[in-house]
């Protein structure tokens, strides 16, 4: 399992962050997804579009500092195809 590095990881390492990076993962329900593209627009850090506009999610955990934006992308999906799973 690859842990994302960067600000969230750094915060977690010095013990001042709310939680170490690595408690949530993004997942796409490929049957529900209709390539509206909201998620790729709202969370380009972790989601890119394939040649047909369907999302490709960066594997691994969502860094803590991106969690609010990830939640916003989840809420914005018109077909509820983007899922944020707690993975403890």
């Amino acid at each position: 399992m690859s842990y994302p590095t960067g600000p969230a990881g750094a915060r977690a390492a010095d013990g001042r962050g709310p939680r170490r990076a690595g408690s949530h993962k993004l997942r796409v329900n490929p049957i529900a997804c209709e390539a509206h593209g909201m998620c790729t627009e709202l969370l380009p850090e972790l989601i890119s579009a394939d040649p047909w506009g369907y999302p490709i999610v960066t594997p691994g955990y969502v860094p803590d500092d991106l969690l609010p934006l990830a939640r916003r992308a989840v809420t914005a999906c018109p077909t509820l195809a983007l899922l944020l799973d707690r993975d403890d």
Partner: protein
Amino acid sequence: MSAMTVLAGLPRLIPPGGPLSLADHFGRYGPVPERDAGGLIGDIERAGLTGRGGAGFPAGRKLRAVAQAGHSGGRLGRQAGAVVVANGAESEPASAKDRMLLARSPHLVLDGIALAADAVGATRCYLALHAGRRDELSVQVGAAIAEREQAGLDRVGVQIVPVPRGYVPSQETALISLLNGGAPKPAFVPPRPFQKGAHGRPTLVQNVETLAHIALIARFGADWFRELGGSAGSALVTVSGAVQRPGVYEIALGMPIGELISRAGGPAEQPQAVLAGGYFGGWLPYDRALGVPVSDSALRAAGAALGPGVLVLLPESACGLAETAWITDYLASQSAGQCGPCANGLPALADTLKQLAFGKPDGRALGWAEELSALVAGRGACHLPDGTAAFATSGLRTFADELRQHALSGPCPRVQRRPLLPAPGHTWGQRS
């Protein structure tokens, strides 16, 4: 004479001669033993039996998950009652072993269904077949089911479910969708079948050969199962293509591919490559394939798979690139069309492979094929995109020399040959 003596060595699953009546079946194998659930599941786990439908998932672990979900009780503390689905809907075009097993040893499969039903606490059992109710296979197995009902043998009756033909409808979540009154299309998991499957109940979907092995492990134990195949047991394999005697063979796992080809009478013409594991498996150059043991771990290490036990010998007279393109085109046509990356990616991959095999391949097309394969893998609800991508990649790797030849001097004359690999009902460019 004890049944144990009869069952030393091979064959285990398919008795010589025609299908056995219920009485002859019990004469050969002994009666279905009374087994407590935990004991039988423990034996299956110790035996190390893996699923024989293609994915190779440990059978004991699957049974235990369904048994636990079925016995854990709902909100009101009642036990849900699980469902057993025996999967005999053999969708791999080059495989014939499940049909053969059902026709020749129906009672062994039905024993396995009864034992699995007791082990997981099932209240309903189904047998899924790619056959209409009046087809010979349904009639034959239906007669065996009726024989058992008359004898008052099984606690739960078995209902035959006709499944529409095609590569995807027999996938386990697709079968569950069909049983729930929907179209036979794969579903997004979780919930997984063991959590919530047919009729909302914990559901065990197990290949018919796996169930037949369970019927024998229940009688003779885990150690007996492990006596063959360096502890992996035996397996049914379908050998076809350029061999003298194509057919279904029961072998001890671990037998080298070369020996299996000899069992099938040896090559019928100059061989070129071996497709192992069916269309979710992979190609191996003939010389390198000969020494590779027929087992999932060895085949995976070599770049193929055991899958549902499929081996096709490709002769020198066929073009490996054209065969790979043909099957990729077939698999693209089998997409249920539910998931964007599969519905768009597989046709694009198939078209690119066709261009590589039948046109003048260039680096750009090859790069695009590799990129598409990486792009679609893991992004569907079922494994159709992953399997197709792996098959295509394996073909491009194994037939790299041909690819260079085609690039230099155009497609070889062998591309004109009618494809050797079976793709039922398929025509080029057909899409779902």
